[in-house]
């Protein structure tokens, strides 16, 4: 592998369309990606890929898309999403994705903020989200729909189909793409990624072509196997997210990883099963979901199988502990357990051939990582931000690293912990390849990027055993009325480790004790309920079932057992409905991060019911309204 | 004249056997291919009771008949009840399997030697003159009479008694019948009981005439074309079918070639299936239900 700095510098002078065209020239007939269509995995070679992008570019140009204009794409990860995106980049336009789960109001906001000239919708569902505003958005000229199968009744002057767009392009080839690529200024903006802040409107981070390529290259250097061996991966994370873009577009361009697109996101388990990826980048939610499905499945299996699993788990636990401690592990015994129990288990998920499983985007509970490692998956965590332009800040690496930290920085990147009084421990990053700035928001840009070259991440970290441990978001500490300063995410992760808990939010700021709001994992709990003949009719009904309450009591008690007394959850409430990011005003971001303030406001009654305010009221009455309540 | 008597006797045999097929099919839409074995079981039953109640032949006959009825009910309760809802082929196969089981069991119990239940009862098979030049054996006469009585009773039972009407109802529309509070299982068990009773009676009479050995089961199969030609769900049809088959057989033996007597019923059956698959009196729509 060549010198990191050298490679970064080289990439800084390029852009994705150009890189694609070069790849198509070098290995025109190797498979670039596979996309499932009507039950078949359609293989696309690099040449086909480049030609499609060239078509797309010419088609977009014919729609009048010009250099510097914006184009918005909304939909799940799919082949056409990328073709549109790279096509637009090739003509010099700036692309941005909108979360498939975004509410209509959020769509409208991002359309106005970004000022897109073309809106690309994956299917009729997204067309419906934009149509009501279509005539009010001054910049919007066209709406392009990819899958027009449900569009027969639509008649709007701005509507075009993606197929029409490609047709109109006819004849464009690799050379055209290369030419387009060469005409782009690598320092100009390539795309905007909207960060789903837990407070306020999302901000759009503008990322230039070269910066992104150079930044993403740090992952290839960090995870060496990506460039060493051909790998299969599955692209299913939203492409509007920087992480999703890395996996589906950028890393394949920079390494030997071949992404696979499933027929639809709902079929993810089947896509995984069929493609058996060797590398998988994911977000914790999926890992937790899969793990909880497995645990529920094991809990309901026949006694013999269950006993075999338990035995294997015992061996597995000892094995990974030994691995972490660098001791010699029970290799033959564990190999037996792995081949008789864990491999078949993983095979059902399509994860038995995994060489690398990396979770990022949110903290992964160490218990969950440990569980996957026991099952024999090389699971680890990484840490990155939209603002690092597609690079990771830190990441664990190697073979079965001990869970609990997010690893070390890749070559060419620097981090340090802030020593400022105000935000002690905040992680600061320095690199040549950071984002350009927030779209139309110079203040926020200045606040984040600072002037010393060190970018503020807003996360509090600490060094543990040579790895970075994420402590919390900077402003998310809970200070109880007892004056104890606690990290809620640590406790929440413990709660989320239960297969039955989908989301947990710890409350207790300024209170005497901690409480929690818990969203049950509907699939896991309903499986559990069915296996125990607990009848239910709906989510709400299930959430209010006393037996479910008892089940969660046990789960919370289990988490409490690992906590210090002041950190323990005194009581909790189960949310009567599932949190839905697609709904207006829900206290959850499209990436399902909980908006704390909104959450407390939304479920005020539940929260109040957990605290006995009489004492405070008495005290407040006694002291008189001296301080004033926040 | 003798030919007419022969036809009457043979037709009676076929009719007495085939009314079992009809009863079971009509009520439960299942074709019992264990009928030959159940028939033979009836005959062995008579042989057993005859040696048990030696000197009281009437008691022995009555006991044997009761035994047949009981066996029929038992067959339903123990086996066929479980086959409800299974495919026709499975149900028919269950009866075949039952037949094989019964045949084996009977050989186990009674061996392969020829038995003569009539002698065990202490009766002889006298020959009676009919008209000028024809004769009929005592057992043959008994067969004709038994068939007449059986069919008479069955007609009366099905038309006039409450259980008979229920049985017809269950056969015509089991769902509706069940909804009207008719216990289908009781009805089916009754049908099996009656079918085995008549079959057993046929078996006893044939065994009295000809001795009893394990090849008798095949005769059950020979009555099969008769039931089908007449229409599987019609008693009158079974009667007519038996008459047609018996006539064809007897005339074939006398005027053409006795070697053909085995095949001719099946030729008639095939012809009937091609021309009028539901038989003389069978109901047409039944075809689609099987």
């Amino acid at each position, binding site marked *: 592998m060549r010198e990191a700095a050298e490679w970064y510098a080289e990439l800084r002078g390029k852009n994705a369309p150009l890189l694609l065209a070069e790849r198509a020239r070098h290995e025109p007939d190797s498979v670039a990606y596979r996309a499932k269509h009507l039950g*078949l*995995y359609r293989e696309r070679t690099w040449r086909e890929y480049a030609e499609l992008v060239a078509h797309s570019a010419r088609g977009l140009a014919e729609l009048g898309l010009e250099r510097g204009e914006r184009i918005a794409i909304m939909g799940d990860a799919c082949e056409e999403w990328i073709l549109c995106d790279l096509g637009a980049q090739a003509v010099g336009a700036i692309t941005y994705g909108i979360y498939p789960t975004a509410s209509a109001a959020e769509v409208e906001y991002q359309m106005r903020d970004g000022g897109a000239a073309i809106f690309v919708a994956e299917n009729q569902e997204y067309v419906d989200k934009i149509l009501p505003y279509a005539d009010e958005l001054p910049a919007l000229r066209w709406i392009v729909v990819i899958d027009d199968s449900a569009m027969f009744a639509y008649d709007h002057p701005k509507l075009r189909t993606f197929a029409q767009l490609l047709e109109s392009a006819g004849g464009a080839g690799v050379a055209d793409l290369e030419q387009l690529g060469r005409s782009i200024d690598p320092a100009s903006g390539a795309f905007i990624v909207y960060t789903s802040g837990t407070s306020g409107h999302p901000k759009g981070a503008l990322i230039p072509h070269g910066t992104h390529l150079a930044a993403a290259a740090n992952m290839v250097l960090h995870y060496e196997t990506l460039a060493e061996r051909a790998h299969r991966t599955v692209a299913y994370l939203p492409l509007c997210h920087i992480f999703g873009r890395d996996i589906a577009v950028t890393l394949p361009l920079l390494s030997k990883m071949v992404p696979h697109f499933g027929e639809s996101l709902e079929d993810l*388990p*089947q896509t995984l*099963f*069929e*493609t*058996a990826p060797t590398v998988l980048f994911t977000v914790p939610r999926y890992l937790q*979901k899969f793990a909880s*499905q497995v645990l*529920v*499945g*094991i809990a*309901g*299996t026949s006694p013999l*199988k269950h006993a*075999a699993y338990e035995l294997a788990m015992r061996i597995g636990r000892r094995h990974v502990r030994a691995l972490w401690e660098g001791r010699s592990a029970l290799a033959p015994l564990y190999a037996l357990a792995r081949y008789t*129990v864990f491999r*078949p*288990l993983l095979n*059902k*998920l*399509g*994860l038995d*051939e995994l060489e690398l499983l990396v979770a990022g985007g949110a903290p992964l509970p160490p218990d969950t990582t440990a569980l996957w490692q026991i099952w024999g998956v090389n699971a680890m965590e990484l840490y990155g931000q939209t603002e690092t332009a597609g690079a990771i800040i830190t990441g664990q690496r190697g073979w079965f690293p001990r869970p609990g930290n997010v690893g070390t920085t890749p070559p060419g990147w620097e981090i340090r912990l802030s020593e400022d009084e105000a935000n002690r421990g905040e992680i600061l990053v320095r690199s040549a390849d950071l984002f350009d700035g927030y779209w139309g928001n110079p203040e926020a840009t200045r606040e984040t990027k600072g002037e010393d070259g060190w970018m503020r991440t807003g996360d509090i970290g600490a060094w543990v055993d040579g790895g970075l441990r994420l402590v919390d978001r900077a402003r998310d500490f809970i200070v109880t009325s007892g004056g104890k300063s606690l990290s809620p995410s640590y406790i929440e992760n413990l709660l989320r480790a239960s297969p039955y808990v989908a989301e947990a939010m710890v409350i207790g700021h300024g209170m005497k004790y901690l409480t929690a709001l818990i969203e049950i994992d509907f*699939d896991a709990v309903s*499986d559990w309920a069915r296996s125990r003949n607990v009848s239910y009719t709906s989510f709400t009904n299930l959430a209010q079932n006393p037996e479910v309450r008892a089940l969660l009591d046990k789960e919370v008690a289990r988490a409490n057992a690992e906590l210090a007394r002041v950190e323990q959850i005194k009581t909790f409430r189960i949310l009567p409905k599932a949190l839905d990011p697609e709904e207006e005003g829900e206290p959850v971001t499209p990436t399902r991060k909980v908006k704390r303030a909104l959450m407390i406001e939304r479920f005020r009654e539940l929260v109040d019911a957990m605290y006995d305010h009489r004492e405070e009221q008495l005290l407040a009455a006694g002291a008189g309204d001296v301080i004033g309540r926040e | 004249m003798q030919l007419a008597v022969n036809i009457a006797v043979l037709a009676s045999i076929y009719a007495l056997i085939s009314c079992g097929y009809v009863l079971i099919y009509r009520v439960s839409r299942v074709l019992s291919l264990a009928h030959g074995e159940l028939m033979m079981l009836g005959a062995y039953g008579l042989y057993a009771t005859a040696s048990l109640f030696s000197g009281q032949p009437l008691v022995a006959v009555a006991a044997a008949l009761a035994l047949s009825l009981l066996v029929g009910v038992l067959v339903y309760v123990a*086996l066929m009840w*479980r*086959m409800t809802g*299974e495919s026709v*082929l*499975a149900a*028919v*196969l*269950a009866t*075949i*399997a*039952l*037949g*094989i*089981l*019964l045949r*084996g*069991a009977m*050989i186990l119990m009674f061996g392969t030697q020829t038995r003569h239940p009539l002698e065990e009862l202490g009766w002889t098979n006298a020959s009676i003159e009919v008209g000028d030049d024809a004769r009929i054996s005592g057992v043959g006469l008994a067969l004709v009479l038994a068939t007449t009585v059986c069919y008479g009773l069955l007609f009366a039972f099905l038309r006039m008694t409450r259980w008979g009407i229920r049985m017809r109802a269950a056969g015509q529309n089991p769902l509706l019948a069940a909804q009207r509070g008719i216990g289908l299982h009781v009805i089916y068990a009754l049908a099996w009981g009656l079918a085995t009773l008549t079959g057993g009676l046929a078996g006893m009479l044939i065994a009295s005439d000809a001795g009893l050995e394990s090849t008798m089961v095949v005769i059950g199969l020979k009555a*099969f*074309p008769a039931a089908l030609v007449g229409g599987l769900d019609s008693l009158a049809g079974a009667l007519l079918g038996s008459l047609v088959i018996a006539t064809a057989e007897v005339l074939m033996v006398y005027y053409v070639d006795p*070697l053909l007597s*085995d*095949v001719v019923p*099946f*030729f008639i*059956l*095939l012809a009937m*299936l*091609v021309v009028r698959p539901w038989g003389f009196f069978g109901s047409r729509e039944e*075809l*689609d239900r*099987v």
Partner: protein
Amino acid sequence: MSVPRASGYFRTRYERDFALLDTRTRKASLAAFAVMLVVYPFFAGPLAMDLANQVLLGAIGAIALMLLTGYAGQISLGHAGLLAAGAFATGILYKELGAPFWVTLPASAMVGAALGLIFGLPSLRLRGLYLAVSTLALHFIVIYLGSEYETKRGFSTGILIDPPGIGEWTVYDPRAWYFVLLIAAAATVLFSLNLLRSKTGRAWRAIHGREAVAGALGISVHRAKLTAFVVSSVLTSVAGCLFAYFRGFVSVEAFSLFLTIQYVAMVIIGGMGSILGAILGTVFVTLFPYFIEWLMDAFGLTDALSSVVFAVNYSAFGLAMVLFLVFEPQGLVGIWRRMQAWLLLWPFKQKPLAGAK
């Protein structure tokens, strides 16, 4: 669309959907099984060899019946008649013309095809039991004709047939027969599996499901039924021809109605609608009497019950059939599938990721 049994098998062409073997495990186990089949005769004693040959021969007939009944849904009780037809065609040609086996085999197949057409004709008008009865009638007719021939030509104890051969080499050693029959059975299995994957096979399944719907889908119900009868009959007749050579004789007594029942039992006990079922059923039905005898031997009952071995066997066979029908209507293949599912789902009981998103 069938789902592969293990992860990591994605399809890039629809043809893969019809692949007979998808996973490496299946390919490996089939290869192991094939090796076992090939080395078997070098370890087996004469009785075991004969049993294996019987199973292989039976499997051809059972698969033929399975195609007709288990897939196309046409009940036939004329199977012994068809076997007899093939055997007699061979026997007659051999005795009358001294025809060698490469004449008799296709001739048997042609007789089978013709009979299949005749046996199939009633199926155009009849269904279910009535069809079964009509095929039964045909059985009697074939047997009648066979016995007429035997009597007329004075072969009262059956027609003797010399072992077939090519040039100097004749097949009469059990081991030689084993390989001949193994090839024949394997060819039948492959042929059937391929046929079932084809348009014809799909048409059969459709008419099995519901004729009216199949008709509405544009399938020629008549043609599908007749093809089913013809294909099944040709295979059966070929099995009959092989029987004649393998046993070295033909006589009507060898094709009793009980033989039909045995074949139907193979199909039922094996499990409807499965070629594997037909094979398992053949193994079961063929070996069952020997198993019972061995059992009696093992418990030292042979002497006590020597005079009733047949009856015990007979009853046990009936009982086994009843038990299968009542307790395992899916047949042996149902048990096999459950065992397979148990292993395939290991360590789960159900598919774990059904609801994962």
